[in-house]
């Protein structure tokens, strides 16, 4: 297919004509120049149709030249990177880039789903809410999911390496147009640290493509010289950097797009910037004019048309109608005429001004009070119906103008997304027909077009003033003068033209989400008067362009439909990010092995050398089991369990939290914090203890050892140490400052090796013959500080497996040596190291709960069997009051029970215990732990079930249900093994 090139033989300040760049569009080989965007290169190659619309699959072309682009969402692959939803206007052209249209099948030109457009009468806004309720949503879900969405993400992993950086500055200036540069000059002249971020590849913004002069130079030259001077002054000038989010406390998120070539780095880098002051010089977006068929390819933003002409040397039409309601579009008309195009201007306003008169000298005619009402379109624009704006009494004044391009400007909408995200309010300005910044956070100032200063001289002045004010707010005084700008022609405010009626056909407001005037009116008729409801009902502004071109037009139509002013309708909430951001950029380094700071015990390397299967348990990398000589995990786990039940097992319990609490009031303090009485523990003894939240639910359990009169060692669950430590600190610092206690986290200082099993005492005796391990010296729940092999250790008799057990705590740096010695000695005893999976089964056999597995955030002590009277403890303690409330004492609370089956197959964890009630079957609890017990040769399970203890007493049978499966079990006491505890001393 041959298409006329639209590239002029000269011009285009951003392209380098000496470097041709080959790329592919829908499989076709094309060329552009270095410096092109994908959009400019496509347009230069005469391609106007770039996509199909989201809902009706209507043909769409490029509308804009930047982040506001609603149509040109394409699939891009370059250098091994794939972006399924790239905005063609923001994609730099690289050699080998391959792009294709999305949301079209079998091809962009012949899209079968385009038939939906013919059925549009049956698919208005909100039709899905009214339609897909019949027969249940799932009937339609798969078909809708296939049709919905834009590009398709590939399964392959993103192998790019993403970085993230943090930075701080005194003043962040967002936008390096005339206002932003002036602000940066002013702020930096006060000696402040300034960051100047701009989305463009070169600083200058509108100065790059408007025929303006600043300080006696062309706008583009002044911008380049100023940026260089700023960098020289120490300002961090960051081109190709978009500020995408504004958050509390002066925090901003920026995405820097770098050229990374083949380094393996991702081009996008996230910056988190803390700025004491910010100046938002973010410019303004041009709005479309809303008229019949205004979505056709070949109808473009007037500002974009002049950008493609002056920045990329692309003349998009030879016979161009420029339709406007403001002065801005005259820049486009002048540029087009100068490039040789035949130009007609339709100006909705009545009466000329200096800007218009300046245009008239450039060989084009302006018709006032005239607007486009329709276009003749057959694969491209062929004509524009020009017509008086006011209600027409004389149809003869309608006139078809021949044209191959319609450049429209419906006015400017200041880009205030960041301001709004930071909590700034917007106010509607009738004169400018735009929302402007209202009251907002003190540390943010808005300048230039973003503040409604669309004239270059006012923009520069406002930028300078904002920079000086930011400096003054920080106690510094800027010394920069206002850059000189030549006097500008007098302007006329825009005409507020929100919609143009008169011909059949839909009038499009939101091009990306296919929302029409009719949709907004329908929503208003259905009483969606709130703009937030309108947004959700019609999806207006909810596309990936976030309604940059559509919001204000949509609000105006809603205002008209509901008989209100635009100011009364208000705006929706702007949310970050300003432009789509890749998930990789947000994650930065935090992926794969750096995803989460998984903790390691001092024996991590030892476990690896033993072929431990390392998994995440409570934020610790711990061995699930050891790949031994047995085949497979199940056999390995069972072998480990047998070694504990029959001989001895070695377990790394170093991950258990260890907190030392010392001081003359330590016992009192712990009595107040713990549910369990701590002060009656004798030195050298230990006690199982529960820690509650204020609502009486269990925060953690563990063992408290009394080292001496004023020193205690708290042992916490591996994953709860930080929460317990925080709770202790909070209570000590806020409620009980009178207690003289010190709270020290010593978790990582001590390794903990558990020796458990009937031959554990023998093994320890072999380890160190000097140890007195007799039960009268070191009975169960006793503790001593002693030496093993000359190393200071804390030796405790405490058991989680139900067998005689010894916990040996010693300095972390000495743990590997002791572990090796125990393994060597244990060989003679049939001892094996055992992992967390074996421990979980062993403790389930014994009925020991794990907080967070067998309990949840509603579990109270009585629910797991701690039923002592509250009067048994004299001290008030955290959560006591809550235990007296009816919620804590109601009879049908879920309680810990055992579930016994004769099956070899464990009950599914999470299976619901169900009961037949008046309303049918309902869940009365669920299985919390469930395993095959090689010790008992049957499955064992723990569950939390309503009135569980009574069901055990009544010897009821439990009916269970899980994922379509039904099971039976018997309610039994939650201890399956050695209920008398004889083996603790066995």
């Amino acid at each position, binding site marked *: 297919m041959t298409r006329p090139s639209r590239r002029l033989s000269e011009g285009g300040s951003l392209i380098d004509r000496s470097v041709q760049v080959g790329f592919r569009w829908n499989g076709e080989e094309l060329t552009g120049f270095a410096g092109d965007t994908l959009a400019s290169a496509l347009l230069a190659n005469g391609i106007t149709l770039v996509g199909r619309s989201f809902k009706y699959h209507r043909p769409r072309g490029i509308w804009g030249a930047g982040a506001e682009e609603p149509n040109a969402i394409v699939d891009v692959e370059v250098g091994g990177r794939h972006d399924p939803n790239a905005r063609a206007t923001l994609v730099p052209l690289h050699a080998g880039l391959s792009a294709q249209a999305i949301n079209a099948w079998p091809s962009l030109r012949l899209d079968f789903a385009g038939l939906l457009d013919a059925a549009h009468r049956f698919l208005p806004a909100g039709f899905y809410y009214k339609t897909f309720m019949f027969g249940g949503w799932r009937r339609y879900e798969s078909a809708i999911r296939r049709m919905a969405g834009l590009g398709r993400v590939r399964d392959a992993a993103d192998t790019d390496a993403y*970085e993230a950086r943090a930075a701080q500055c005194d003043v962040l200036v967002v936008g390096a147009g005339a206002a932003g540069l002036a602000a940066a000059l002013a702020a930096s002249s006060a000696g402040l640290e300034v960051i100047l971020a701009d989305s463009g590849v070169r600083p200058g913004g509108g100065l790059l493509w408007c025929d303006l002069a600043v300080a006696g130079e062309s706008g583009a030259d002044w911008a380049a010289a100023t940026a260089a001077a700023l960098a020289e002054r120490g300002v961090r000038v960051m081109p190709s950097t978009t500020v995408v989010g504004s958050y509390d406390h002066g925090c901003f998120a920026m995405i820097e797009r*770098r050229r990374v070539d083949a380094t393996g780095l991702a081009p996008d880098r996230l910056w988190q910037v803390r700025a004491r002051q910010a100046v938002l010089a973010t410019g303004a977006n041009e709005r479309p004019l809303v008229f019949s068929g205004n979505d056709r390819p070949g109808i473009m933003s007037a500002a974009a048309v002049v950008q493609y002409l002056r920045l990329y040397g692309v003349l998009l039409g030879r016979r161009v109608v420029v339709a406007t309601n403001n002065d801005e579009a005259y820049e486009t008309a002048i540029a087009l005429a100068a490039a040789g195009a035949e130009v007609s201007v339709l100006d909705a306003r009545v009466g000329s001004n200096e800007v218009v008169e300046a245009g008239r000298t450039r060989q084009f005619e302006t018709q006032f009070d005239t607007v486009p009402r329709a276009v003749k379109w057959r694969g491209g624009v062929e004509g524009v119906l020009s017509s008086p704006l006011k209600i027409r009494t004389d149809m003869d004044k309608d006139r078809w103008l021949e044209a191959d391009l319609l450049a429209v400007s419906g006015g400017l909408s200041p880009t205030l997304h960041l301001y709004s995200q930071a909590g700034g309010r917007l106010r509607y300005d009738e004169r400018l027909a735009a929302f402007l910044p209202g009251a907002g956070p003190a540390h943010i100032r808005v300048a230039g077009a973003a503040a409604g200063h669309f004239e270059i001289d006012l923009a520069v002045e406002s930028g300078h003033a904002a920079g000086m004010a930011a400096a003054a707010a920080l106690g510094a005084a800027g010394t920069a003068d206002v850059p000189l700008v030549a006097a500008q022609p007098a302007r006329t405010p825009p005409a507020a033209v929100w919609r143009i009626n008169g011909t059949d056909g839909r009038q499009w407001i939101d091009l990306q989400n296919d929302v029409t005037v009719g949709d907004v009116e329908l929503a208003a008729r259905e009483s969606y008067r709130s703009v937030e409801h309108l947004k959700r009902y019609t999806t207006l502004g909810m596309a990936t362009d976030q309604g940059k071109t559509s919001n204000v037009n949509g609000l105006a139509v809603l205002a008209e439909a509901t008989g209100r002013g635009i100011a009364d309708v208000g705006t929706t909430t702007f949310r970050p990010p300003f432009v789509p951001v890749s998930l990789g950029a947000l994650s930065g380094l935090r992926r794969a092995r750096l995803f989460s700071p998984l903790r390691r015990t001092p024996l991590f390397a030892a476990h690896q050398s033993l072929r431990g299967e390392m998994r995440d348990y409570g934020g610790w990398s711990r061995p699930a089991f050891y790949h031994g000589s047995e085949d497979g995990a199940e056999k390995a786990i069972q072998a480990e369990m047998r070694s504990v039940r029959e001989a001895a097992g070695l377990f790394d319990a170093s991950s258990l939290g260890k907190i030392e609490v010392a001081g003359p009031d330590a016992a009192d303090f712990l009595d107040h914090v713990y549910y369990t009485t701590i002060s009656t523990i004798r030195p050298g003894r230990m006690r199982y203890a529960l820690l509650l939240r204020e609502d009486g639910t269990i925060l953690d359990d563990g063992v408290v050892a009394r080292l001496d009169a004023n020193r205690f060692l708290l042992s916490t669950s591996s994953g709860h140490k930080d929460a317990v430590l925080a709770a202790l600190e909070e209570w000590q610092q806020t409620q009980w400052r009178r207690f003289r206690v*010190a709270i*020290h986290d*010593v978790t990582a200082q001590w390794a903990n090796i558990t020796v458990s099993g009937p031959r554990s005492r023998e093994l320890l005796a072999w380890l160190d013959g000097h140890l007195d391990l007799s039960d009268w010296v070191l009975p169960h729940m006793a503790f001593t500080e002693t030496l093993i092999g000359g190393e200071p250790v804390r030796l405790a008799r405490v058991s989680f497996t139900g067998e005689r057990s010894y916990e040996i705590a010693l300095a972390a740096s000495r743990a590997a040596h002791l572990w090796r010695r125990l393994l060597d000695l244990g060989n003679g005893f049939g001892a094996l190291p055992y992992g967390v999976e074996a421990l979980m089964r062993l403790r389930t056999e014994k009925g020991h709960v794990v907080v967070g597995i067998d309990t949840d955030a509603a579990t109270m002590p009585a629910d797991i069997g701690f039923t002592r009277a509250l009067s048994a403890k004299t001290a008030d303690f955290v959560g006591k009051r809550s235990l007296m409330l009816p919620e804590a004492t109601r009879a049908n609370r879920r309680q810990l029970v055992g579930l016994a089956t004769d099956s070899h197959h464990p009950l599914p964890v999470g299976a619901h215990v169900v009961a037949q009630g008046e309303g049918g079957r309902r869940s009365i609890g669920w299985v919390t732990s469930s395993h095959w017990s090689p010790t008992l040769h049957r499955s064992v399970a723990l569950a939390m079930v309503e009135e569980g203890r009574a069901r055990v007493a009544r010897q009821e049978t439990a009916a269970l249900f899980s994922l379509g499966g039904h099971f039976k079990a018997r309610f039994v006491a939650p201890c399956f093994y050695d209920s008398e505890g004889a083996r603790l001393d066995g």
Partner: protein
Amino acid sequence: MVDSETHLPFAYRDFAVRAVTPRSQMLVSQLSDGGAAAFASLLGCELPRTPNRVVRTAAVLAVWMAPGRWLVVDDRPRRTEAAAALTRFLAEGRGAISNVTDGLTVLELSGEGTAEVLSAATSLDLAVALAAHDHAARTLVAGVKALLYFGNESMSLRLHVEASQAHFVVAWLAEAARLRELGQPPAPAAAVTAGSPSS
């Protein structure tokens, strides 16, 4: 301490990380008025009273951690008489001491690239938090709780992290340094001291 799976030291052209192993690290808390002063006299080093400050002598360094709580890093050999004095101090209930020598890994970060690499690991404004040689900062580095202060060398920073997470912080810093190196223009060959982590 650093486990054997953690690759240290490593160095790039202007950034290096190595482990430092002080003889002793102690958490010290005051339990009675004058407890801090009594401990300071035992230590031979004042305990800082201002938040996030460091006091140091040739071999002892004390960092303010919380009201009435300090981390003391002592590089002197153990002395019998000092141990006895400490025992008396504890017995009198004037303070509490916990040994955390193995519990905290100490890393030394050096080179002109230190601040930039750290900016990939923490959002803290180091120029403010560590504005002076006697400042310390407690913050998150790579999402891990960390203590930062200047080392004895003017261009180095000391970083204490819980030993169980030290491997993660080291891996993060190594990756941040590697990516930073990739993103920089190639240096003259002579200026490169190491192109990849070296153990």
